[in-house]
């Protein structure tokens, strides 16, 4: 196996790693989405629960948004690595690439 193939193979493996990570974080995001709580869930006694409930809601929304971002980014990193491998194969060498082009979805 020549030097170029060693590199493109490892780039494709690395890309596959990110696609797997994307799937894994997608499953976690689905689990996190289910963690909503009604205002009545905050206290069994006599207390104002509205602010607690709103604070939780904000945090929950934020976490789900963050995890959704991870799903997208991981997938795009995986695709970018595969694009790089394809470019190297096409040029038959490790060429200098326009990074703005490569790291763009």
């Amino acid at each position, binding site marked *: 196996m020549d030097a170029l193939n060693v590199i493109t193979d490892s780039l494709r493996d690395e890309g596959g790693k990110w696609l797997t990570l994307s799937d894994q974080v997608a499953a976690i995001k689905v689990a*996190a989405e289910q963690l909503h709580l009604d205002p009545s869930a905050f206290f*069994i006694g*006599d207390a104002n629960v509205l602010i607690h409930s709103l604070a939780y809601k904000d945090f929950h929304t934020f976490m789900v948004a963050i995890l959704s971002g991870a799903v997208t980014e991981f997938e795009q990193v995986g695709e970018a690595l595969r694009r790089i491998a394809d470019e190297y194969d096409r040029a038959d060498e490790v060429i200098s690439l326009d990074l703005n082009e490569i790291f763009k979805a």
Partner: protein
Amino acid sequence: MQPGTTDLEYGEPFNKAFDHIRSGIDTAIAKFNEIVEQVQQWKWLLGPAALLWIKHSLDSTKTALNVVLDRVEQALEHQLPVLSLIHVSFRWVNDVKTPVSELSSATTDPANENLPKWTGDAASAYNAKAVKQKAAVDESVVKSEFISQWLFTIAKANVDYAVELAKIVTGLVGKLAQAASEGVTVIDLPWAISTLAESVGDMVTAGLNVLLTIGQRFVDALGNIRDIATQVGDHSKLPGGRWPEAVRG
């Protein structure tokens, strides 16, 4: 507070307290009615003054009982929803924090040991991006841990409240049962009921104060809202409150 991996640690004492509350409150009402029946039974022997005295004592006992009943009803309505909060606090750990933390090292560990042979601009750019992605993963772990701890604090206040309410109910049953058994003769009845009214009143007042303190702890968890705002607003690893973009678009 070190939570276990299951919610038994909180769920079990919580539900057990409710079992005590449910059975206790039924007994309390039964005992109270028993005492009222005893009064009815001896009414003809008791003079108007004694009857008035008894009526006054019974009324204040009933008032105390009703105060506790209100708390019990409110608590019963929230038992299941609060149980869901306990579940959710553990799920933040088990379903989010732990699985996300398992992804952390994978972000920067190469899938293929030959990857370091890849050098140059593109390789450095990729490595820098991978490091930022790892930081964001680790930050998500910190945030899931934070929210679960926040919910645990609230869960703990709820468990303590239920346990204290169960104690009040149990104490109430004890006092009522004592009065019912001591007041079986017409001689002892007025005295037993008067003692009952006094001790029940003191006990309920003390118990409500404890409930108030626990309620304050729940309200104090609001102070952590500032922590929450800090968590959501800390953008050092999640720029703009979003996942760091490794790839534009």
